[in-house]
């Protein structure tokens, strides 16, 4: 079969001396794409893995996947970023972020599978990619602009028009190709320029790569933006097979907006979109304004979870940024706050800590002349004036914003409140300074995965089914669409793990060997399929299907593999792909160990062990009678001793030394990572 997917070149840019280099993608294809290639490039090219994220030697990579820019459904639009982060506490681990839109596809149409950047420019620059032409341009005219203004300015510079919608030619002759498209730009805002540790990178209106502070890393390199426009093609090994898979997936797993097989039983219940993937995800964040709205999707998606709105605010925003600030009774203002956040280039998950600060304010701890002194108008918390002054204070490091731009965790440390407030849960940061996402005491593949890793994992593929399906159906007074027993069996089958006990969230279930196998599966699956092959996390894995009547069989794992093989012409099997995932997870683990990771550091903050859950939290459990039920799991904590035992058993399962958490030579060698073992050994950090 013909080969396809990759376009063959990775661009390496050294900003210190302004040179570029082409790295053949073929040298790194064994890693799949995306994160795997980013990790391998980092390992090869960064000699001292302990450098700080702000150090010029930190190498950040923007990688596409083999299916980027193709018709592979919900697997075409994501870009993975890797490098040392600056948000995590106490150590900025080697880490990742990821954003949607059309940057990945456009970069490949320009002829590049990725861009790897090292060094630091003398003065602000931006990288301009127009097909083969790569130039490092002066960003003096862009520095200081917000993320949206920057993109409009670059569109104008590259195409000669701020809003091109007609054919324009590249390269002076017609052979260079023509396009109607705008360059795809990823940029930083004022927050990144000012090295705010919670700065994101942003693309188009609302595609943010938020977690880990890569906006600040770009800022530290004096890199304002990367722009790509291209007219080339992405080869596809078996086009007819890809087309067939696409229409099959649409028919079987998609939401038919003209004649849906599953619609919300209560009109207006937006959350139902989680189950049936209705366009705009059922207006998950905001109902459309009276003036209307339309769904909006990343390149090649078959679900299109976001929206464009009549007020022009929050276009393309779907995730946590939509929850940034909800205090106004005027929906326009709430949405405007999200757009302001995007424009300043801030990661919502860190800066939405204004609610934590409000609690401190209400307690009399924070405010004008108080222990934590600030003149931010918390007395007007419900006004746009508040959120605007708060947001800009962080982006421009004004007043208390200078503390907050270090991230809320470092700010709380500086204020002397971190240990106390994470012990009570007032500040709910379970690990590495990251916001609690899903409950770390209950949904443990999320919390274990985050703690054994580098950040908040932010992977919803299991969560949609085990948590949201029973919750949403209960909220509308409906029986679960799938019983607890059928659900765990479907997941056990679809993942290939086999043992349904892996999805038992009971008091004992969260410590079981079966659970640890499920956690391990989750790490390996995500590292390959989500973060390297770049299947979108909001669509894949499809472990259970609600859109085909009584047939709840999910698309995973058959369709992922068939799509990959149709595009690349390779002969992946699911087992091989999972092994690549394990390999990537292990090279990452080795980098963290070189950075100082040790078993002793892998503990949650106090509230996870000591403060019981207070709100209902639906998850399947196997009860004392051995029956599977959905329980609300109130009053639960994580047990310290049992979790310590979990660590020992999980390390062994992964081939890591139970005493230290360091990978062993045998385990690394089995993954063809002997060179990684050598480096660990040289550093005295090889597990035994």
């Amino acid at each position, binding site marked *: 079969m013909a080969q396809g997917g990759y376009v063959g070149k990775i661009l390496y840019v050294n900003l210190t001396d302004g040179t570029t280099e082409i790295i053949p993608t073929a040298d790194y294809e064994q890693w799949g794409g995306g994160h795997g290639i980013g990790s391998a490039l980092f390992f090869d090219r960064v000699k001292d893995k302990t450098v700080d994220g702000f150090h010029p030697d930190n190498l950040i990579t923007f990688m596409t996947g083999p299916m980027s820019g193709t018709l592979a459904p919900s697997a075409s639009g994501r870009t993975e970023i890797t490098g040392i982060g600056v948000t995590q506490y106490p150590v900025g681990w080697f880490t990742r972020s990821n954003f949607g839109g059309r940057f990945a596809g456009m970069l490949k149409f320009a002829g590049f599978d990725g861009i790897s950047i090292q060094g630091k420019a003398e003065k602000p620059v931006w990288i301009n990619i127009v097909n083969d032409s790569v130039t490092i341009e002066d960003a003096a005219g862009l520095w200081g602009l917000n993320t949206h203004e920057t*993109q409009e300015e670059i569109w104008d510079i590259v195409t000669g028009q701020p809003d091109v919608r007609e054919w324009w030619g590249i390269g002076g002759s017609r052979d260079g190709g*023509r396009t109607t498209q705008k360059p795809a730009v990823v940029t930083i805002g004022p927050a990144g320029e000012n090295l705010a540790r919670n700065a994101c990178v942003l693309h188009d209106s609302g595609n943010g790569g938020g977690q880990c502070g890569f906006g600040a890393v770009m800022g530290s390199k004096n890199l304002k933006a990367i722009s790509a426009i291209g007219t080339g093609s992405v080869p596809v090994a078996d086009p007819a097979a890809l087309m067939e898979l696409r229409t099959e997936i649409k028919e079987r797993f998609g939401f038919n907006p003209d004649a849906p097989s599953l619609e919300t039983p209560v009109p207006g219940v937006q959350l139902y979109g989680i189950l049936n993937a*209705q366009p705009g995800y059922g207006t998950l964040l905001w109902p459309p304004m009276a003036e209307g709205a339309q769904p909006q*999707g990343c390149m*090649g998606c*078959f679900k299109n979870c976001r929206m464009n709105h009549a007020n022009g605010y929050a276009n393309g925003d779907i995730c946590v940024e939509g929850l940034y600030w909800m205090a106004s009774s005027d929906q326009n203002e709430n949405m405007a706050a999200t757009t302001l956040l995007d424009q300043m280039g801030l990661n919502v998950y860190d800066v939405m800590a204004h609610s934590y600060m409000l609690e401190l304010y209400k307690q009399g701890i924070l405010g004008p002349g108080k222990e934590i002194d600030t003149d931010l108008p918390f007395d007007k918390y419900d006004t746009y004036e508040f959120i605007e002054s708060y947001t800009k204070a962080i982006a421009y490091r004004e007043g208390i914003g200078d503390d907050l731009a270090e991230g809320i965790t470092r700010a709380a440390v500086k204020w002397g409140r971190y240990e106390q407030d994470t012990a009570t849960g007032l500040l709910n940061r379970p690990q590495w300074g990251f916001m609690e996402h899903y409950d770390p005491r209950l949904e443990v593949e999320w919390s274990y995965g985050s703690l054994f890793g580098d950040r908040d994992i932010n992977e919803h593929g299991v969560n949609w089914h085990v948590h949201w399906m029973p919750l949403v159906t209960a909220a509308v007074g409906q029986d679960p669409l799938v019983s607890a027993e059928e659900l765990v069996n479907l997941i056990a089958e679809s993942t290939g793990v086999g043992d349904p006990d892996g999805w038992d969230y009971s008091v004992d279930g969260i410590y079981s060997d079966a659970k640890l196998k499920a956690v391990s599966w989750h790490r390996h699956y995500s590292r390959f399929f989500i973060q390297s092959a770049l299947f979108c996390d909001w669509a894949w894995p499809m472990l259970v299907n609600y859109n085909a009547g009584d047939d709840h069989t999910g698309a995973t794992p058959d369709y992922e593999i068939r799509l990959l093989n149709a595009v690349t012409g390779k002969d992946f099997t699911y087992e091989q792909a999972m092994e690549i995932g394990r390999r990537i997870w292990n090279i990452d683990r080795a980098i963290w160990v070189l950075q100082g990771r040790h078993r002793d550091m892998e503990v949650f903050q106090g509230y996870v062990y000591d403060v019981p859950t207070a709100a209902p939290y639906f998850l399947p459990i196997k009860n004392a009678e051995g029956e599977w039920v959905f329980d609300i799991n109130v009053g639960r904590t994580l047990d310290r001793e049992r979790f310590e035992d979990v660590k020992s058993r999980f390390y062994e399962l992964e081939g890591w030394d139970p005493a230290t958490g360091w990978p062993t030579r045998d385990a690394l060698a089995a993954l063809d990572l002997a060179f990684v073992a050598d480096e660990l050994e040289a550093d005295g950090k090889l597990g035994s």
Partner: protein
Amino acid sequence: MADTENGKAPEQAAAGVSRRQFLTGIGGLGVGALLGGVFVNGFLLPEEVVAIPASDGYLLVDTKKCGGCESCMLACSLVHTGRSNINLSRIQVTQNPFNAYPNVVDVVQCRQCPYPSCVDACPTGAMHADAETGVRMVDEAKCIGCERCVNACPFTPSRVQWNYEDGHAQKCDLCANTPYWNEEGGADGKQACVAVCPHNAISFTPRIPVQTDDGYQVNLRNAHWGNLMYPTT
């Protein structure tokens, strides 16, 4: 719009104005007049124009239902060329994410004009109306690359493009020639963009649609779309 009522221009054409002048000198009448619509049969078109049969099919696009995912573009290039390239798609989605609904997304597709200036402009007969279906399409072997068809299209962006990778003009053929698709395409078959659109925002019709200079009057949104809280009117 003007396309529904004014008989003046065709009379002038009949009185000796060349077809080219007819196309370019149409003034206030607007390109809609060239496109027909429900009153297309009322035009007094010169004989040789009438001799070009109407297309047996048209693509309808509801931009208010479009999600901007560009899957139609990826599918179009894939089934025709075997490669993935939005720039080689015969249907074009353009977006400005900083605009407000409904001005974020434009989708433009060939309208299979009753009076096809692209066909008229072609010196070799490469651009032609298919004998069986009337669909305006390119015989690539006859294309000499003069791009007159590209420039003749009265719309912006032009619905005819130069395929810079394969060296010939191309336009929407309603998927008549799709060697990389296992389905039968064309005016009497399927269309790849219709097949892949997640929202069914593109549809095929055998009848010439009601239209203005701005495009067809299309609403593909039914009550289920309304259940998602999106506008249906």
